[in-house]
């Protein structure tokens, strides 16, 4: 058994004596006898570190998916993580720190978060960003809660262009808040807002779940006309070359920050990006880091506007978020620092180049057509002669994760394919060749 309890038997005996006890079992005398577990836990006995590591290697080895060349996106992307980012994000001062409630000994995490907030605000084109939420989907839930509170109206008009899984998550939490979530349909890949007459919040994803550069201007107009808050779920990599949520007129921007330094990791831990206009600052969920000074005027950072948070406002709090994703936010800060102003534009551009190249080649295959015909950037949807699930299964046998199965919201199935900056022309060519084989 590996163990991390340092006491020697002699120390245990001395400590028991000091506390007036005669055995370790007596420590639990306050637990009623009838509740005490007889015979121990029904799990295997502990293993040495060596044997535990072997078990972990065994399980990791069963994931054949780790060796597939990834063309899947849908909210999780196969971006490169440079060595420097991996090494720095793994520093145990960050990994094993507590929440920075004692700012005098937490300036490292606090300053990193301040820099992160600045980067997210600049990327989203909004004035303020928080210090992270759990993931893109739950960040959207918090955005909806803020928007309903700010507008005073519970009707949420959500584009069907939002990732389906995110829509599900929003729906789940609406059971508690009572918010009325209305799905606004896609028509030819673009949200059709024509039937929306009233709303407290309008939600659009950009690019949307089919990869399409949706009409955010139309969403903004509906929000303006109905007096609703505009929430834009944005892709932080695409945002390097696309108009920012702020430029489109968003009140709140949310996004999935996984592309910044975090491997795909079977879906987590990821990073909920959250930015808003300054006027909403007192309703922002989660932690916020601010700059101040110490007693001698030296610059210092601290968590701030703490009175918004659950431990102070308790049942009046508008969010219950406590532990969030600090380490992933720090990682994102380091990755954005490594890429820098030009590097992020290069990543987005290289994704878009690969996407266009792959799309044109795939559409040259007989029977493969565009699911929708609208401009895309980093992923795109195709209709295939065999069902998308079958394509994914067959392509896995060829060594590729072909994409994510979806539909256009109008009854047609499709496959969403993503190309990141990691995918070479050679990889795309062999992907296309395999694709041609499996759709026959």
């Amino acid at each position, binding site marked *: 058994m590996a163990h991390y309890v340092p006491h020697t038997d002699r120390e245990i005996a001395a400590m028991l004596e000091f506390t007036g006890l005669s055995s370790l079992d007596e420590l639990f005398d306050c637990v009623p006898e009838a509740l005490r577990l007889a015979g121990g836990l029904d*799990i295997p*006995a502990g293993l040495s570190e060596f044997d535990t590591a072997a078990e972990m290697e065994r399980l990791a080895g069963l994931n054949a998916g780790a060796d597939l060349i990834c063309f899947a996106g*849908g909210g999780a992307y196969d971006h490169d993580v440079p060595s420097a980012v991996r090494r720095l994000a793994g520093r145990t001062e960050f990994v*094993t720190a507590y929440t920075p409630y004692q700012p005098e*000994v937490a300036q490292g995490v606090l300053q990193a978060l301040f820099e992160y907030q600045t980067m997210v605000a600049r990327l989203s084109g909004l004035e303020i960003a928080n210090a992270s939420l759990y993931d893109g989907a*739950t960040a959207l839930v918090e955005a909806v809660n803020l928007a309903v509170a700010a507008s005073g109206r519970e009707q949420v008009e959500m584009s069907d262009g939002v990732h389906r899984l995110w829509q599900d998550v929003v729906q*789940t939490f609406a059971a508690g808040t009572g918010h009325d979530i209305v799905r606004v349909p896609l028509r030819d890949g673009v949200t059709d807002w024509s039937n929306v007459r009233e709303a407290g919040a309008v939600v659009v994803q950009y690019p949307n779940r089919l990869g399409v550069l949706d009409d955010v201007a139309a969403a903004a107009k509906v929000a303006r006309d109905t007096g609703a808050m505009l929430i834009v779920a944005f892709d932080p990599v695409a945002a390097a070359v696309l108009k920012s949520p702020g430029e489109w007129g968003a009140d709140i921007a949310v996004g999935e920050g996984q592309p910044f330094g975090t491997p795909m990791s079977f879906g987590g831990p990821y990073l909920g990006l959250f930015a808003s206009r300054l006027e909403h600052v007192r309703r922002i969920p989660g932690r916020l880091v601010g700059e101040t000074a*110490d007693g001698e005027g030296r610059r210092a950072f601290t968590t701030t506007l703490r009175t918004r948070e659950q431990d102070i406002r308790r049942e009046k709090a508008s969010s219950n978020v406590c532990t969030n994703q600090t380490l992933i936010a720090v990682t994102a800060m380091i990755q954005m620092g490594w890429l820098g102003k030009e590097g992020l534009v290069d990543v987005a551009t290289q994704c878009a180049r690969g996407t266009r190249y792959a799309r044109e080649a795939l559409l040259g295959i007989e029977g493969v057509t565009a699911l929708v015909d609208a401009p895309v950037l980093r992923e795109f949807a195709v209709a295939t002669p065999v069902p998308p699930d079958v394509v994914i299964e067959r392509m*896995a046998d060829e060594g590729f994760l072909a994409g994510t199965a979806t539909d256009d919201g109008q009854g047609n199935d499709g496959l969403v394919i993503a190309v990141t900056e990691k995918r070479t022309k050679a990889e795309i060519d062999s992907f296309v060749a395999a694709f041609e084989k499996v759709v026959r």
Partner: protein
Amino acid sequence: MSIGAGRASSAPVVGREIEPTIFELSVDGRRAGPLRTTNTPEWSVDELVPSEHRRVETARLPEVSERDLVAHTTRLTHRQYSVDLGAYPLGSCTMKYNPKLCDEAAGLRGFGNVHPATPAAYAQGWLELLGTLGESLCAITGMAAVTLAPPAGASGELTGLLLMRAYHEGVGRQRTKVIIPDSAHGTNPASVTLGGYETVTVPSDARGLVDLDALREKLDDDVAGIMLTNPNTLGLFESDITEIAAAVHEVGALLYYDGANLNAILGVTRPGDMGFDIVHMNLHKTFAVPHGGGGPGAGPVAVGPRVAEFLPGPLPVRGENGTWEWFSPERSIGRVHGWYGNALALVRAYSYIVANGSDGLRRVAEGAVLNANWLRHRLRGTFDIPYDRPNMHEFVAAATNLKANGVKAFDIAKGLLDEGFHAPTMYFPLIVPEALMIEPTETESLETLEELAQAFERVAAKSADHLTHAPYNTPVGRVDEARAARQLIATEDMRPKQ
């Protein structure tokens, strides 16, 4: 050319000199290494993005070299306390040592390089790990089924409350209230509100336990459930729990177990045996997932048989031919996370449980409770101990004995930072004035506890004058938190123009 007015990026910081922000180190046109060469056609941004969608001004990310970035970030780590540096006697936070074995497990490519939409046949190791971890957590808590998806404790709480709601609606009941003790964590009432319920507070009695008579008075047909932490936030075991459970169940309500303090009872007793219906766990406390400066954590929710059919999906299940598959319960409340939760945090917790096993986990609880009781005895005379009787993994001291000298719990906390330790949790639970809530955890040695006790003694002996300006030996002095709120500067661009 002129050399920028900024600080040299790799000149070490000395003493209490501030670290420039990464933006202050930025030099126009500088960058780190190139991207992968892909050989795809070199279309320009103008060719790739329709003009009405094109960003006009490039986002002002910093422009630094890799060397600048490494120096800057490494200097930030030197301004940061962490478990790997020293003890965190933080009550209710369970800041135990995080085994490096678990880091290595989470770093395996076979886990990290798997896209979450990968077909189950190609992610069998993941499903087996999640399924087996779920079974272990059920065995540890005495529950029937579990979801691993909630990414943090508060998310687990809200998931649990939505399960409670689905259960009552499923049996055709309208319930409006949830009872929580006055010693509860702040996330409890906030989660209750987001779950669509009203909070009713039940007081603690003179023993520091739930006042059973007061609870009975509040139980009626409007009550959906009660949220309890056991041991509670005073570190005391709710010894009437069986009677509480019977009374709650009698009105058709459910018991929710806040697992923040689960570390105290591993292998000793189980929430399921106490009568709880819904249990959340903080894997970043009990199961050694490192806290990450405030996450990522993981907050799985285990439930009894009556609630299992409402669990969020998808759940890993063993198929007939021995392979693992995804399954979503028919009456599921729906997804609570974009994918399956903080999966790599779950890998860490799994490896911790495998390494410790049934024997090791029991030893964890023994060590945690022994350390906390020893330290309570050791600090008698240094602070008031409002509930001075056998405690579990933590206890609450109070600085009320120093009030006459003008010293507050806050000052003690700041003074302890100068002694090289992290401060304890302060002013919590709310029912103890000048509270210092202390949880040493099982991974701190007797020698560390003695050193910590002496540090507390030294701080308690200091004058109010001295402590008001503490700490003195930290990278910055006492931080003006009020000013941060008064004049909000949450980004580089919010600083007042010079």
